[in-house]
């Protein structure tokens, strides 16, 4: 048994001993409330911590769950078996309804739009007349009864609430410790690079938002049963900021953080007399302190401490396995671009480019700064949409597809500046790119446990095989942020290859490398091409590129000014004038 699991069991055991043996009726009630808060925070971690979107609607989802339970229970006498699922479903439905317009928005737009939603929900319930009880809310909610069996307040209700909490924590841990959690990290750190390795960011964010609403609704329903009354307070802004403070202070990406944050902020104001009536003031101060001093929260601090005491997996436990590139393209040309154009404001970044590429070919792309090389790469990989023109890949039109779909079809790329997540282990950063191809990503895969055990070992082994092939096997267990530029390039190429692409686009792969590393990189790229992989290489380093490419395309001001073998390009007067003139002179 590993140590964190041991601590978790110890914590659970002491909570049980405290609840059964020592807690008074009042303390049992406080502990039950704390459980509800843990559940709410577990949900909030998914959208705020993992998806990295500052939702201000968690209070609204919580309150909505509470009201559904109260209205069904107090007005219609519905039992727990009916009201609890509905208390989860309604917030999820609301989240799904607003997710489409709202999740596209950049961070602060998203935050304020979700706050707007929360305010509308609050207004609706305060002004809901007798049905919602208006500003006073709904009193006299009967206790939990499941198919006629009544769960008394006190220890029985506490057990029910904490059983739900345990299930919620199990589910969240499943989701966020595995490869899907890694995909969330990629998405947070660099959404463009994430889409380039086939991660469907929109879908991940959508699931996280819906799940956060579901957890919020469940927490609200349980809290309503515990309190026996529901008032608009449950929907209010204070509910949200309490949740936010618990999440940030406990730690926003670790399951343990939800327990630490919620229990601490529930118990401190109970224990510290001078905090009486000032809990929110203290939450504000603690939230500020945590944001500045401990951005990963208490759980993050503990995890760092842990990592020092007990180092993780040893390299020899990951046995490399070779990854076979896909068979040669059945449809040629592999890539076909016709009359492609894209404008930014008044500037024509790409103004009618045609190009074809066959499997196994290495195409060099040259041109002065601002000539449109990176824009062309962005258009082919779907990060930028063309204004005009057609892009076909293996005969299929791809110019209207999303970047992640194009990546999954088999066009991989690297970026000019390193796009690796600094904190993530090299092996994991490569394995996660295998995940979308191996279809083990997302909530469905998590629920089928496809991202665990043998599946995960297979991904790791394939990732290790790629790293060894690129000569980066030795650093597989180091964090990406530690790598020198040369190794980081190799890891990025390994990660791109993990998609099993038919076409690989490299944006300035030699930049920042020592001369001695150039030959090595060129050899690796040639051997990949020999296996049938097509390569487009954008590069300023002419000796490197002209020695590598079979054909070169020269761009200037968004147009193709010359194309031919490296020897022809060297002699081309237009290329000399616009580009080589300065570099080769």
């Amino acid at each position, binding site marked *: 048994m590993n140590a964190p699991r041991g601590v978790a069991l110890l914590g659970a055991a002491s909570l049980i001993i405290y609840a059964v043996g020592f807690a008074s009726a009042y303390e049992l009630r406080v502990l039950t409330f704390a459980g509800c808060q843990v559940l709410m925070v577990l949900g909030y971690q998914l959208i705020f911590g993992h998806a*990295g979107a*500052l939702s201000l609607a968690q209070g609204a989802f919580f309150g909505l769950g509470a009201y559904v339970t109260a209205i069904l229970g107090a007005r219609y006498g519905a039992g727990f078996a009916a009201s609890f699922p509905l208390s989860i479903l309604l917030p999820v439905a609301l989240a799904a309804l*607003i997710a489409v*317009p*709202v999740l*596209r*928005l*950049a*961070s*602060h*737009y998203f*935050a*304020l*739009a979700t*706050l*707007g*939603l929360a*305010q*509308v929900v609050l*207004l*609706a319930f305060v*002004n809901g007349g007798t049905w919602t009880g208006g500003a006073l809310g709904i009193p006299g909610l009967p206790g939990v009864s499941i198919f006629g069996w009544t769960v008394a307040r006190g220890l029985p209700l506490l057990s029910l609430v904490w059983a739900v909490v345990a299930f919620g924590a199990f589910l969240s841990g499943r989701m966020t410790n595995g490869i899907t959690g890694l995909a969330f990290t990629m998405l947070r750190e660099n959404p463009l690079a994430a889409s380039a390795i086939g991660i469907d960011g929109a879908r991940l964010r959508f699931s996280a938002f819906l799940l956060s609403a579901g957890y919020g609704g469940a927490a609200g329903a349980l809290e309503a049963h515990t309190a026996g009354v529901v008032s608009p307070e449950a929907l209010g*802004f204070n509910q949200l*900021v309490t949740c*936010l*403070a618990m999440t*940030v202070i406990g730690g926003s990406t670790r399951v343990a953080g939800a327990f630490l944050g919620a229990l601490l902020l529930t118990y401190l104001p109970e224990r510290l007399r001078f905090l009486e009536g*000032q809990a*929110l*003031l203290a*939450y*504000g*101060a603690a*939230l*500020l302190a945590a*944001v*500045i001093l401990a*951005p990963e929260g208490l759980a993050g601090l503990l995890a760092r401490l842990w990592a020092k005491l007990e180092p993780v997996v040893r390299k020899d436990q990951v046995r490399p396995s070779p990854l076979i590139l896909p068979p040669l393209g059945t449809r040629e040309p592999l890539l076909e671009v016709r009359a492609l154009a894209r404008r930014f404001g008044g500037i024509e970044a790409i103004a009618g480019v045609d190009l074809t590429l066959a499997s196994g070919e290495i195409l060099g792309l040259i041109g002065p700064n601002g000539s449109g090389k990176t824009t062309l790469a962005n258009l082919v990989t779907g990060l930028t949409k063309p204004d005009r023109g057609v892009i076909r890949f293996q005969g299929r039109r791809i110019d209207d597809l999303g970047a992640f779909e194009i990546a999954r079809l088999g066009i991989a790329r690297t970026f000019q500046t390193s796009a690796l997540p600094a904190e993530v282990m090299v092996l994991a950063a490569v394995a996660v790119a295998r995940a979308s191809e191996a279809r083990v990503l997302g909530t469905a895969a998590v629920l089928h446990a496809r991202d665990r055990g043998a599946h995960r070992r297979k991904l790791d082994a394939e990732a290790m095989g790629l790293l060894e092939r690129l000569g980066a096997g030795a650093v597989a267990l180091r964090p990406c942020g530690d790598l020198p530029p040369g190794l980081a390039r190799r890891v990025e190429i390994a990660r791109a290859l993990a998609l099993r692409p038919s076409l690989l686009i490299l944006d300035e792969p030699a930049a920042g490398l020592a001369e001695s590393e150039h030959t090595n990189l060129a050899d690796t790229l040639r051997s990949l091409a020999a296996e049938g992989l097509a390569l487009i290489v954008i590069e300023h380093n002419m000796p490197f590129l002209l020695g590598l490419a079979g054909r070169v395309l020269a761009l200037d001001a968004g147009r193709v000014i010359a194309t031919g073998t490296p020897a022809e390009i060297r002699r081309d007067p237009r290329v000399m004038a616009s580009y080589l003139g300065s570099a080769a002179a």
Partner: protein
Amino acid sequence: MITLAQLALNALSLGAAYALVALGFVLILNATGAVNFAQGDLVMAGGYLTAWFVVLLPLPGLVLLPLAMVATALLGLAALALAYFPLMRRPPSTVFVSTIAIGLILQNGAVRLFGPEPRVTPPVLGGGEVHWAGLTLSRQSISLIVVAAVLILGQRWLLARTRLGRQMRATAEDRTMAAALGIPVRAMIALTFALAAALAGAGGMLLGNQFFVTPTEGSALILKAYVAVVIGGWGSLEGAVAGALLVAAFETIVAALVSYTAAIALLYGVLVAILLLRPEGLFGEAAGRRA
């Protein structure tokens, strides 16, 4: 006719006060690239400070206004030192969270210091009504509009015509470039923050006479400022003023015809519709998406 004129005047005076709040929001957004969520709470603080000053010094509102602005500017600088400068290199959403914390502290600090009961700020130049061309108009509404107009024009003059203002704008546009040109970037950010907080304080003092000051009004105000800024175009100062006037007109008219609750609910509905159809705002986006 009379009610219509008074209604228009009410809308204009409410809009003038909202404009001060929205202007402060955009000034900080442009200078730091981050949302200051505590902007609404600074408005609330300005209201409470004026209500407190008038007890100590029973002077007309116009005299207390500069005091309130200076005091709120100091609060704004404290917020900057705690919630922005330590987090300058972190993503903008971190600052959003830290300013939520500042707002929480201001809000609950106000409850502790002044209690939960609403307070009233003194009128700018005494209450009562003036009769003009057969119309009866509130003196407070007229003086509010004049004061707000002077402050908005003053802020425009400062940014457009003075050397200091040019340095502030250069910092907002490109911080690295401004620093390379020898502009003291941190000082300019601090000055912008102080200016924005002072405008919020003035807004609080002006709003608090007719609408009272309550500890929790901040989050409603920040949402209205946000709606005004989204309508006017993210990052545009003129757009923020125009958006604030539109929000106030909408609120006043719908509240008169239906109810205040309906006005607010519809307002947020319009906001979602704008985000859906024209995410760049009605008048285009002045500052690119920074976050």
